């Protein structure tokens, strides 16, 4: 009787949390629901709920972690089976499926290990290098780390040395070169792809976009470095895209939420710095500044985000997300979303976790608030 009662209680709580999550303007209720479902051992529903929450709050790191974790647990046995099959059969297709499975859980390092194992077992075949290239480029599109793009391009060129007629590798190179603005190289690989498959729809579509773009004036390394350092890179073929400014409604909600953040126990001040808007809040009162340098806290927020982002990328740990810095009696928490950063100054180390959770909610409750094109 007791297990049935417990099951019913769990189900009833899930239902209550789900109703709460659907109405909450912040992702915290979705996170609670997912954690509850994971605790109940219902990984499939936890993954489903995390997916639904992410559709509404695409920048929630907690929901993303839960989705990845739930998928990884659910796929554990499958991955073992795929590894065994791939190693025994040494078939490139089996390794490709294994790589895709890892990528579905965002496990890039494991995906790379699988692709490198294929390279080791079948050094004469191009598929291993091609897979390494695709994984690294996928990671580059997400994090904009120049070394990923460089290594990805080298791996694809290596695949083409083994099989010069591989249309997919030529197309992959055409895509990345178009993305970074190396138009002449993109055209070269595009025509090689069309030589192999003249009817390829994606290649034909790519050709239409590429022929109108001006040829690059800089070397590949310079283009990549500029993208890595850029706060918000927009590729040349999307240059006509308008900057998304912060609407009055968004500004109102930012002012309100930052004010609330500054009222948390032990919080001294909170700052919000983006390209178009700088806010500073203290004791629930939020002020708009014309320039981040008007207040040292905003200057620190902007300067730290840039330094941390470039250092993290070059150290090989990806794009900067957040930082907790303790300095004497103060704790500074930085939370970045693209070029935007929120900085909260507090005076009690024991409150770090509570404030971090609220900052995650603050950041995830809004989409990237603006896009400013910066061209390589």
């Amino acid at each position, binding site marked *: 009787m007791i297990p049935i009662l417990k099951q019913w209680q769990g189900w009833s709580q899930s239902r209550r949390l789900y109703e709460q999550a659907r109405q909450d303007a912040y992702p915290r209720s979705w996170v609670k629901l997912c954690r509850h479902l994971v605790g109940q051992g219902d990984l499939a529903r936890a993954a489903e709920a995390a997916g639904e929450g992410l559709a509404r709050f695409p920048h929630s790191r907690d929901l993303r972690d839960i989705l990845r974790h739930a998928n990884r647990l659910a796929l554990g046995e499958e991955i073992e089976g795929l590894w065994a099959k791939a190693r025994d059969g040494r078939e490139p297709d089996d390794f490709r499926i294994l790589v895709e499975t890892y990528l579905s859980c965002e496990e*890039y390092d494991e995906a790379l290990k699988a692709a490198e194992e294929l390279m080791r077992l079948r050094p004469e075949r191009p598929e291993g290098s091609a897979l390494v290239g695709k994984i690294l480029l996928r990671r580059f599109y997400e994090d904009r780390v120049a070394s990923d793009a460089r290594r990805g391009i080298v791996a694809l060129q290596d695949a083409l040395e083994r099989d010069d007629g591989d249309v997919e590798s030529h197309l992959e190179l055409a895509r990345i070169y178009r993305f970074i603005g190396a138009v002449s190289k993109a055209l070269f690989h595009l025509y090689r792809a069309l030589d192999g498959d003249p009817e390829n729809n994606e290649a034909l579509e790519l050709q239409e976009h590429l022929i109108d773009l001006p040829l690059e004036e800089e070397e590949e390394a310079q283009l990549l470095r500029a993208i890595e350092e850029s706060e918000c890179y927009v590729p040349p073929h999307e240059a006509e895209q308008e900057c998304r400014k912060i609407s009055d409604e968004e500004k109102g909600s930012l002012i309100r939420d930052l004010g609330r953040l500054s009222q948390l126990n032990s919080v001294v001040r909170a700052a919000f710095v983006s390209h178009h808007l700088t806010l500073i809040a203290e004791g629930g009162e939020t002020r708009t500044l014309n320039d981040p340098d008007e207040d040292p806290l905003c200057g620190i927020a902007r300067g730290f985000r840039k330094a941390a982002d470039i250092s*993290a990328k070059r*150290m090989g*740990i990806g794009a900067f997300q*957040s930082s907790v*810095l303790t300095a004497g009696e103060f704790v500074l928490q930085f939370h970045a979303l693209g070029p935007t950063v929120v900085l909260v100054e507090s005076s009690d180390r024991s409150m770090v976790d509570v404030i971090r959770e609220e900052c995650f909610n603050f950041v995830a409750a809004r989409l990237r608030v603006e896009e400013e094109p910066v061209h390589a």
Partner: protein
Amino acid sequence: MHEVLDELVTVPGIKGGIVVTPDGIVVISRLANELDEDTTAALVGNVVTQTLKLLSLGRYEDMDRMILSASRGKIVIENLGNCLLVVVTNQFINLDVTFLEIKSAAKRIRQLGTLTVSG
């Protein structure tokens, strides 16, 4: 000091540890193959220098600790006085659990006293 880092890098999720001077000179390192010690030390030195410069704009004292989370990993920097202990981890690590190990390593290195800078 080698022993302290050797023990630290056996903790699951930790990719390596390195002790550097604030200006980015390697004192001792135990890093995974994919991490280059000179690059890591230089970049840590750079981010710490810039952070200290920024902190001086406000009313803050010296930095005690920095935890930097990025999409593919985390870095914990402990200020040991005349040098920094830098621990690099993967992105999935639960720092609440691992933190005690890092703090204990920092304490042991501090107790070893004056550091001799090589390289």
